[in-house]
């Protein structure tokens, strides 16, 4: 970059190249500006204003009210704070269950349908991907039927002797295990207007329905990403690991999975964002009931704006959600970052002193993958 800066202005045939570059990208820049950047900036302004939903948010009657919308949500002490806390609680549990499960299921399915020996791989790939291409509203309606109190799921459960819950009408938290009131040290203190007892209660039975729905629909999409990544992996590394005596299980954990790290990051990030923004299923399904246990920030934002005419609060919820998503993505990036092999780990790869070589002079860290494969081989002995 710095070298190009120092270069003199290009002349001759290359002159005007930058201008035409900008010309060609201009339509997209204008489109993105008009339909993305400006609306986002408008929403940001609305979140700091008392705009009531009539006319332009930039008209002279709209006032700047600072952080009032945010403080109502975060420390107002009223129903708005309580609803926001409830929505965050619900969505956090949703994320905690959906993101790991859908990733694991997607990876499992991808590894299965990627196996050479599997017959009819094309059929299975299509079958697993099918829920992803179906409209989420249609699947939600299907789910409401399947999980109704007399629906197919409960019918199946009765065959194994379980009286199924009234799924989408059951507000009980699954981690409360049927207890209706908790100990005083949990029911007393509140965070964002919601008691600790409710925070630790886990997703409600109704939310479990949505969790299953999300895993069912998105696993197929992410399976596709994993398949693409798996097909890109070279066979030579696998062979090297095999030569070193690693069995299938070890090859998967120590050779395949580390190589999938970038895809894993993509899948987790997309999953995290999608989960925090869950809206259409809630909108088409329970709309926050039963007992507000399926209320999510995205739906709350919609409700605050369009139903209650609290546009500032609705926009503020959207931006708080944005902050949450960015924070989680950064955290996850840090967790999944490539690190130098730790000293403890390094010791595993050293050749023991008895064989004549001094400590600390083991294998050079040239490729984490090969190294991992060697580690496997050593464990095997």
């Amino acid at each position, binding site marked *: 970059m710095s070298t190009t800066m120092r270069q003199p202005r290009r002349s001759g045939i290359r002159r005007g190249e930058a201008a035409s570059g900008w010309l060609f990208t201009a339509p997209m820049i204008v489109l993105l500006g008009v339909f993305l*950047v400006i609306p986002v900036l408008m929403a940001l302004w609305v979140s700091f204003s008392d705009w009531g*939903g009539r*006319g332009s948010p*930039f008209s002279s009657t709209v006032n700047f009210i600072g952080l009032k919308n945010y403080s109502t949500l975060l420390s107002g002490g009223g*129903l708005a704070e309580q609803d926001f806390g409830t929505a965050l609680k619900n969505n956090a549990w949703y994320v905690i269950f959906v993101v790991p499960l859908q990733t694991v299921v997607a990876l499992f399915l991808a590894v299965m349908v990627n196996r050479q020996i599997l017959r009819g791989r094309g059929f299975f790939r299509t079958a697993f991907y099918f829920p992803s291409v179906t409209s989420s509203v249609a699947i939600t309606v299907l789910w409401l039927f399947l999980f109704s109190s*007399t629906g197919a799921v409960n019918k199946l459960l009765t065959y194994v002797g379980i009286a199924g819950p009234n799924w989408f009408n059951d507000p009980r938290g699954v981690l409360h295990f049927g207890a*209706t009131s908790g100990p005083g040290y949990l029911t007393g203190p509140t965070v964002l207007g919601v008691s600790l007892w409710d925070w630790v209660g886990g997703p409600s039975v109704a939310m479990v329905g949505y969790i299953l729905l999300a895993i069912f629909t998105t696993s197929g999409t992410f399976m596709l990403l994993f398949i693409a990544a798996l097909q890109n992996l070279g066979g030579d590394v696998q062979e090297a690991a095999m030569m070193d005596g690693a069995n299938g299980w070890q090859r998967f954990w120590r050779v395949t999975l580390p190589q999938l790290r970038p895809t894993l990051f993509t899948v987790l990030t997309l999953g995290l964002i999608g989960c925090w923004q869950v809206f259409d299923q809630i909108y088409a399904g329970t709309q926050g009931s039963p007992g507000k246990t399926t209320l999510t920030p995205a739906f709350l934002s919609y409700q605050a704006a369009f139903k209650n005419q609290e546009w500032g609060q609705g926009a503020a919820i959207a931006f708080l959600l944005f902050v949450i998503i960015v924070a989680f993505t950064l955290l996850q990036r840090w967790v999944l970052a490539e690190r130098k092999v730790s000293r403890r780990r390094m010791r595993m790869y050293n050749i023991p002193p008895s064989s004549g070589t001094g400590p600390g002079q083991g294998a050079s860290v040239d490729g984490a993958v090969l190294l991992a494969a060697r580690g496997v081989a050593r464990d095997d002995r």
Partner: protein
Amino acid sequence: MQRRTPRWLVAGALAAVGALALTACGSGFNSSSGGTSSGLTSSKKALTVLIGSSGDAETAAVKSAVADWSSTSGTKATVTAANNLAQQLSQGFAANKPADVFYLSADAVAGYAANGSLLAYGDQLKNKSDFYPTLVKSFTYNGKFYCAPKDFSTLALEINDDMWKAAGLTDADVPTTWDQLEAVAKKLTTSKHVGLGIGGEYARVGAFMTQAGGNLMNDDSTKATANSAANVTGLTYAQKLAKDGVLKYAKDLGAGWGGEAFGKGLAAMTIEGNWITGGMQADYPNLKYSIHELPAGPAGKGTLQFTNCWGIAADSPNQTAALKLVEKLTSAGDQLAFSKAFGPMPSIQSAAGDWKSANPALVPFLDAAAYAHNVPTAKGAADVVTDFNSKIENLKTADIKAILDAEQKNLEALVK
């Protein structure tokens, strides 16, 4: 250098685009059409009517009524049935291009009135004094009567005649007090069905609160009255029925609403509004049932009423014509026609006699208008009601006093 200039350029271009977009958004805000002496705008523009329709019957009835008005008045008007009324209204108001006349639910009035979207035309209606006074209160915000009540519904008690006879009960046993209701509910509860099956929400359970002399807010929705002793009495009575197993929520019976539980024979009695007649006719045409007024509680008779109004937009360019259209749509003739087509009760007192003679079986609904109370309509009250609903979902174990205290706090915050 190579990079800096274009960057500056693109920033400028973006700013220009932004400014353009914003001015485009900003155009037409202060456009006001010619006013008249009454302060209403008038012009030659056609009217748009946005309705949240319950079905084809309603859409057709409104369309034909509006078409009649158009042909006599000479002002064109088109009726659109909204998919999502609240959302489409909000979009219209934000864009300054709202529908001229529209349905508006009682709990949405305060929100739109507060941001100035609504025209407060109530006092200019010729038939103003004909509306039921409690309905007018539903649409009064900050002392101004905003919009004309379109129609209304009240809650009454529906009884399954066959189950009633099977339990050895006669016409003389129709409950008029809480004790009697409890007694018949017990008799009607069998292993196959429950005595009383109702929707588990304020809009049904709240009737018991009014019979005890309470409600979440007063009829004007200017004062929070949630934690009154009367409300505790009302809910405690409902809780007692639930604990005795003679009252169950529709969802616990595996039904979506009270009418479904009633129609499927899961409940011998239910508490619903006059919309139940349409549902029964469509889904359970063979069910024999009768409609009675709700029993009186310690404070006498009480029920809840639900209503919508005809809103007129403050930004409408032709408010004079819109007002005339609303006067026509709320006239006795039109309201009785609507009632025949899709069931609601006329919002004007002068149509009561005709309506009763046309619907003898439904008289208890209209008689209830005399003692019906409004649901809270303060801005944000819908959220409090939702919160209340979520807390009474487990009526049997609910801590009634604590719930009502919490809602009192939430409602007080709204009317401060």
